[in-house]
């Protein structure tokens, strides 16, 4: 179809003259990693908390946790992102809202993206944690309580150390997902990896080189994550359980 390949395009200076196209790609790569990692830390902490709350014998707390999970799990990620970025600042009172909206746009985009990805993923992490806790034999909880532990102590010393180790494999796939989901944030103008890739197409009219580079970059990130998580899994595997010896 007469396509003109040009891999040298990455070394050309950009149209605005401030960098090379490779530099743009690398900036996007760093943005994707910073965004995904910060969102993942929040998602993990929040998800663990909500997951535990879903299993506690208290109607109010469990109900709140269920509501939280259903809310963030059932609304499409893109819609959530638009709500965080476009709708929420409008709800801030006049002067604060205006001051926020006139602040550094990259900061606004990053903040909205991070909160959005973190909460969306935390609902999914919560479900994994809940599944881990529920998969433990009932006897463990009863044994803990019979030994004189309070309920929080039973969670802390008996159930959670087991549950977290069991859910590492499914959490790995959530960890991979957060990197892939971060591409959605290009829709609000955040210049992460996918956005830089698209920008390269717009500026150079070389779509294949650009998309191939973006694909390889995502692949590199996720293969690295998989490799590291595999190591973690091996270290903490529970003998006698799935994957254990």
């Amino acid at each position, binding site marked *: 179809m007469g396509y003109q390949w*040009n891999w040298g395009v990455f070394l050309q200076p950009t149209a605005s*003259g401030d960098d090379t196209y490779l530099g743009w790609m690398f900036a996007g790569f760093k943005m994707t990693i910073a965004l995904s990692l910060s969102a993942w830390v929040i998602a993990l902490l929040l998800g663990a908390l909500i997951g535990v709350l879903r299993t506690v014998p208290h109607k109010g707390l469990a109900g709140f946790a269920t509501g939280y999970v259903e809310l963030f799990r059932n609304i499409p990620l893109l819609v959530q992102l638009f709500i965080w970025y476009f709708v929420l600042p409008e709800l801030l009172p006049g002067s604060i809202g205006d001051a926020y909206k006139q602040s550094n*746009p990259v900061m606004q985009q990053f903040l909205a993206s991070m909160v959005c990805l973190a909460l969306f993923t935390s609902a999914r992490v919560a479900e994994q944690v809940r599944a881990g806790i529920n998969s433990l034999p009932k006897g463990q909880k009863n044994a803990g309580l019979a030994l004189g532990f309070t309920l929080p102590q039973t969670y802390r010393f008996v159930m959670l150390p087991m549950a977290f180790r069991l859910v590492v494999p499914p959490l790995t796939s959530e960890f991979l997902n957060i990197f892939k989901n971060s591409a959605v944030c290009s829709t609000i103008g955040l210049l992460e990896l996918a956005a830089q890739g698209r920008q390269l197409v717009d500026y150079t*009219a070389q779509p294949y080189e650009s998309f191939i580079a973006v694909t390889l970059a995502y692949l590199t990130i996720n293969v690295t994550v998989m490799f590291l998580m595999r190591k973690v899994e091996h270290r903490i595997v529970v003998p006698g359980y799935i994957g254990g010896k």
Partner: protein
Amino acid sequence: MNRFAFAAAFFTALGASTVMPAHAQESPTLKKIKDTGAITLGHRESSIPFSYYDDKQQVIGYSQEMMMKAVEGIKDSLKLAKIDTKMMPVTSANRITLVQNGTVDIECGSTTNNLERQKQVGFSTSIFVIGTRLMTKKESGIKDFPDLAGKNVVTTAGTTSERLLRKMNEEKKMGMSIISAKDHGEAFLTLETGRAVAFMMDDALLYGEMAKAKRPGDWVVVGTAQSKEAYGCMLRKDDPQFKKVVDAALTKAMTSGEAEKIYAKWFLAPIPPKGLNLNMPLSDDMKALFKAPNDKAFE
């Protein structure tokens, strides 16, 4: 790099050698249209007033009417009684690829003819000339580009405006924060919600966005044009015969005064969806184009 250039040349030659002997000099696009009796037209979904959907999901607009003139010309040159037209919506991200890979035969929307794109696709005679300017709130106090220093400014990703704005920011050290929205609608939303003080874009599209605004009277288009751009219809590269037919039809429309009537219909009279009049007088550049149609890029 040379290796790829060689490979590309090799495959082009291979493609040519298998097609050419059988139908010497015949345009592959024209042949396809003749054989199937159908042509696939690429259009935009929200490039007001060039190519967009009306409330009945019909494609309308200035570029759309010019494209239909080209289709008429193709029909006459092939001596067909009628041509089936298949409408294919395209975006700024996929339009080049869709023309290149043969999905779309011709795309008339709001596509700038520039040198980088000419490496991948062909362009017809230009159908419109725009200038890149600013839209801002009436009482914002912004009159021209220097007033933007230190402010948040929005533009649409992948446009010439984005490049110019970045370059200006870099060269003149203006300290603007540039927001690249994914389409014109989102860029205008960014302006409307106060995230940015101004929106830089092709003037005709700014007037189009204004027509969609809740209160069109709140907005003005200001500033000296930073660049001129020629919109053309995209065609497949290396099909000079097809381009010739399309160019002839467009040239005829422009020199005969038909194009000026189409212009008046879309820029000087109320248009859907809100029945607003863009009131954008025919510019000197447009007058020159209608007088002497050409396919030159401005860059």
